[in-house]
């Protein structure tokens, strides 16, 4: 018995060592850029970012924030201008559609549902050339409004799918009681279903916010003037083709990812549930 317990303890220790080593390996790149960002690059090249000696400075952050060519400050402003409406608008529109998909039957319903699933699998590349011409003719090319529009439309399919699944799983008793009391469909949706769906709405909002904030391809296709660049474009542009200033780039990277990381820290539960939930049933 004692030997068996000893064996179990040994196994427990080994598993812990393995798992925590992997966790440390996984964080190394983050630690690396964090160290590089707070040191003068000339020292990092000589001593390595893992060396704790030497000077510490915020110069890289200041340089990246107010870079004359590609400024993170301008990138932040533009990213927020795009991301906030491109999270709220599709969420509202998709919630309405998801309710109809969940509670009513209507002609072509299954076909429409399949269309949503196909859209979810489509690569962004499949739409951008016609969108480029459309935005041009609408005067929205190189405008943040154009980007908001595209993100709103492309967020709808997966949001509808996710919210429909959630609405399907809600208990119907309260809705039926309200219907007996004479409440209409719109009332039931806004007063009962929507408030009960706050966890799902938080998940969807957190993920759409992160995706829009993190988007690079649409921004690259539809924005030209660096004054209109969102933060991902600004940071990507900081990397020269041949010379890389890792100090500047590390600071820019940290600032670009800090917004979604902060959101993740605050809403972790909804985040994970959302990432997994829209792919798993129920």
């Amino acid at each position, binding site marked *: 018995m004692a030997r068996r317990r000893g064996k179990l303890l040994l*196994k*427990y220790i080994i*598993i812990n060592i393995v*798992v925590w080593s*992997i*966790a440390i390996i996984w*964080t*190394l*790149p983050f630690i690396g*850029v964090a160290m590089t960002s707070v040191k003068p690059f000339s020292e990092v*090249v000589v001593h*390595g*970012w893992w060396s704790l000696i030497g000077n510490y400075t915020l110069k890289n952050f200041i340089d990246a924030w107010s870079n004359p060519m590609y400024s993170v400050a301008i990138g932040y402003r533009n990213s927020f201008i795009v991301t906030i409406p491109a999270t709220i608008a599709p969420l509202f529109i*998709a919630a*309405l*559609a998801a309710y*109809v998909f969940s*509670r009513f039957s*209507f002609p072509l*319903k299954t076909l429409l549902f*399949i*269309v949503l*699933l196909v*859209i979810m*699998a489509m*690569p962004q*590349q*499949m*739409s*951008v*050339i016609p969108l480029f011409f*459309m935005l041009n003719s609408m005067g929205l090319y190189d405008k943040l409004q154009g980007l908001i*529009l*595209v993100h*709103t*439309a*492309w967020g709808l399919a997966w949001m509808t799918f996710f919210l429909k*699944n959630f609405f*399907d799983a809600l208990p119907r008793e309260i809705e039926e009681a309200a219907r007996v009391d004479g409440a*209409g*469909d719109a009332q039931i949706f806004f007063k009962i279903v929507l408030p009960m769906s706050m966890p799902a709405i938080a998940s969807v909002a957190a993920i759409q916010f992160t995706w829009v*904030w*993190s988007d*690079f*391809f649409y921004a690259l296709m539809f924005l030209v003037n660096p004054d209109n660049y969102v933060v*991902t474009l600004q*940071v*990507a542009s900081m990397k020269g083709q041949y010379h*890389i200033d890792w100090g500047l*780039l590390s600071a820019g*990277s940290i600032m670009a*990812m800090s917004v979604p*990381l902060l959101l*993740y820290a605050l809403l*972790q539960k909804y985040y994970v549930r959302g*990432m*997994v939930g829209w*792919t*798993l*049933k129920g």
Partner: protein
Amino acid sequence: MGRAKKRSKKKIIILFLLPELVLLGAFVLGPIAGTVFLSFVTPEGIGLGNYYRVITETSPDKALIIPENIVEAQPPPWGALVHNIVWVAIHLPLVVFLGMILAYLLHEVKGSSIVKSIIFLGMVIPMVVGGLLIRFIFDGTLGVVPLLFQAIGLNSLAHTWTNYPETALISLILGSVWLWTGFSLTVYSAAFESMPKSYIEAAKIDGASGIQIFFKIVFPLLKHATIVVVVMTMLWDLKIFDIVYVSTLGGPGGASNVMALVMYTYFARALDYGRSSATAVILALITLIPGVWFIKQVLKGGPKER
């Protein structure tokens, strides 16, 4: 009364569905149809010319199958389409295996939620930043990987991996494992949590070993989670763009080129909308292979239609 109710129901359906259908029609389905149309438009008229030229193209920055500068003995570079397939072939098994094993091990580890959160970070950060971090990991003077090889005396790998055709693609693929394992781990962890404990307990009492339990009991119960991980990972691999654009731009000499980047190159550098569209359609058709499989799963075993 009945008819009025029916009419109000119809009104709700139309009212609630309309904004979504208009936006999807105008900015999603319309453009998709437009891309398909453009892919058939060639200078010589309507036809399959773009597809033919895109597939047989051999210039290193646009080739899909075989580039002119292919190294017969030991490629890369291959064409971008081949790179995407290589990406799936290496990335997918690693991600499935790592996610499954880690989820199983973390099941009995204290502080496992911290480890999970750390590994999940790759899912949260913008892919552009992910690509820059990959470039950093494999940097000759700063990166952990080249320094590791320097330490063990393998100097041929102690340089910036993304700058050399032999190592550019594999460094991006390995880096993408680092970014994407969080997804697989999270899906598998959720599957483990919903797994009935009594099965495993009963097997333990019967004297089954950990490995036996894993392969005989746990593994079959992970089928649905595995389908999700496989499909999503394949879609992610096939659509990969940001990481490549920011770290290597498909280079050197096309050695890390991918489909999505070729589509962009035709559009932005060659201004050839027809061939760019044809590349996009080929990419979309390939993503539909896992896509259709997933749709079938959703319609079959997913949430019930009411």
